[in-house]
């Protein structure tokens, strides 16, 4: 379990980026941290693996205080995939890139090879194994960065804006991958302002604004509430905006996902149509 207790963080410039954050994340959790540009999302993510230490309060990773253990030690448990893949990539081939962390952790060459192959396969990167990461497109480089962290199977996976530059099919693949990870008991935390991705993935949502948590709950309850969504500079998902207009017909307001919307409307429109069918 990762626990943040009253965590505040002030950059050396004096800017208060996080203010009194209380949060806990455990295996099997799937959490989306959302908020405006500059809300403190990435600063929060860097606290989860000890890259930043709180100015006040503390962060415990499986009971260990991040101020007292090294980032390298925490890296085996907490994998952080940065927003910009170029901050993470440096090897000559995709294969080497993904193997780097595993080698550093001291795994045998056989384990490294097997694990690299598996991860590349799962992320649809097998065909690029021998290419330079820098010859790939932005979206592909992002997946290589993800693979390099995933290969060592951290218990806690932190993804900073994983959907940027990904097309719809790749987002579907990412969604399935995340689903698989947390159903295996891993914790997945994603930082994102992709409201439609969140609406269809249904994680727990934590809304951050100006360094403070301003809302918490299921995706459908949080993302369908105007005051919360506005405060975090987000826009409601399309389904929520649509259902906000349809409450007078007895439909619920808290619908964010297109599949639930379809079921509700099928029932509703079925009712409307039925009498017509009986009395042509």
């Amino acid at each position, binding site marked *: 379990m990762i626990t943040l207790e009253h965590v505040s963080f002030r950059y050396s410039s004096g800017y208060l980026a996080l203010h009194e954050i209380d949060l806990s994340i455990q295996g099997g959790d799937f959490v989306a941290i959302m*908020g*405006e*540009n*500059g809300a403190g999302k990435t600063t929060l993510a860097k606290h989860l693996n000890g890259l930043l230490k709180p100015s006040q309060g503390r962060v415990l990773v499986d009971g260990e205080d991040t101020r007292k253990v090294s980032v390298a030690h925490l890296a085996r448990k907490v994998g952080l995939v940065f*927003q*910009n893949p170029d901050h993470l990539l440096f090897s000559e081939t995709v294969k080497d890139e993904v193997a780097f962390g595993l080698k550093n952790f001291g795994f045998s060459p056989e384990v490294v090879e097997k694990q690299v192959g598996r991860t590349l396969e799962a992320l649809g990167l097998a065909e690029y194994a021998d290419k330079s990461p820098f010859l790939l*497109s*932005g*979206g*592909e480089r992002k997946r290589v960065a993800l693979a390099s962290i995933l290969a060592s199977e951290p218990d806690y996976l932190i993804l900073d*804006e994983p959907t*940027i*530059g*990904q*097309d*719809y*099919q*790749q*987002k*579907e693949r990412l969604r399935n991958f995340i689903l698989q990870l947390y159903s295996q008991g891993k914790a997945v935390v994603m930082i994102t*302002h992709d*409201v*439609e991705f969140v*609406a269809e993935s249904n994680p727990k949502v934590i809304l951050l604004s100006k360094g403070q948590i301003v809302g918490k709950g299921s995706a459908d309850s949080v993302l369908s509430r105007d005051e919360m969504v506005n405060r975090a*500079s*987000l*826009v409601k*998902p*399309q*389904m929520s*905006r*649509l259902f906000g*207009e*349809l409450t007078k*017909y007895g439909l619920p307001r808290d619908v964010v996902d*297109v599949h639930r*919307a*379809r079921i509700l*409307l*099928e029932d*509703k*429109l*079925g009712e*409307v*149509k039925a009498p017509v069918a009986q009395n042509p």
Partner: protein
Amino acid sequence: MSRAREIIVAKNLGFNYAGAKKPAIQGVNLSISEDEFILLTGPSGCGKTSLCRCLNGLIPNFYQGEWTGELMVDGLDVTTQPTSELSRRVGYVFQNPENQLFALTVEKDIAFGPENLGFSRDEIRERVDVAMKITGTSALKELAPYELSGGQQQRVALAGVLAMKPSVIVLDEPTSFLDPHTAEEVMRAADDLRRELGLTIVVVEHRLDLVARYAERIVVMDGGKIVADGNLGQVLDEQFDMLEGLGVGVPRVSLLWSMLRRDGLVSGKVPTHVEDAASALSGMMSD
């Protein structure tokens, strides 16, 4: 509206990067007029970024490979013009504004392009002031680019290309790093440039819902070819299954409508906006 001038004309355009097995773009025929707002989309690797690189001459001037066909931009043949000439006419805003901004202040960053063109001080001042005014960045002029939010940075990048007085602005996934409110703000700024200055805007974007309000026309690419080109609402309505099959991020209301239409519960055109869907559904439910 008077008939607008053609600003981009591609005839059977193709490009194969040196060493690549397949051409990145092939057989592209495209004609874009002044003051159009175009959404260019398609799955990763479909050739949309390569096509944009042709528009400002990065291809074939900076990328090795085999060029076929013709491309005229603002009356200039891309293959014979120096990129310096083309980059004055086609401004390019990249996905990550951090990669584009480098000067110590916003004002200097915006002035960089016109300074390099050797204009007089007065001309530079005027271009910078106008660009800042239109993009709403005047208040930021003394700040360093790194002090700005993502949306502000993207508007400064837009001002920088605007100060070159281009005829076309290409925005390549300009909102990826931005929160939805800020993304909306950048799209609106681009649309203002089209309406007020008659610029041609080409936006590359995976998320159609962000652009659907501004773009009348959509161009869809797959495997280096154009597979759909037309009015956005019409393409969504008539070729919905194809778009979905390609993995294009169709607006969620359009997807919902198409599913209900398949179920036989609704009929009529696929809506592109929430408002259209809401009024159509309201109409059906209030007997």
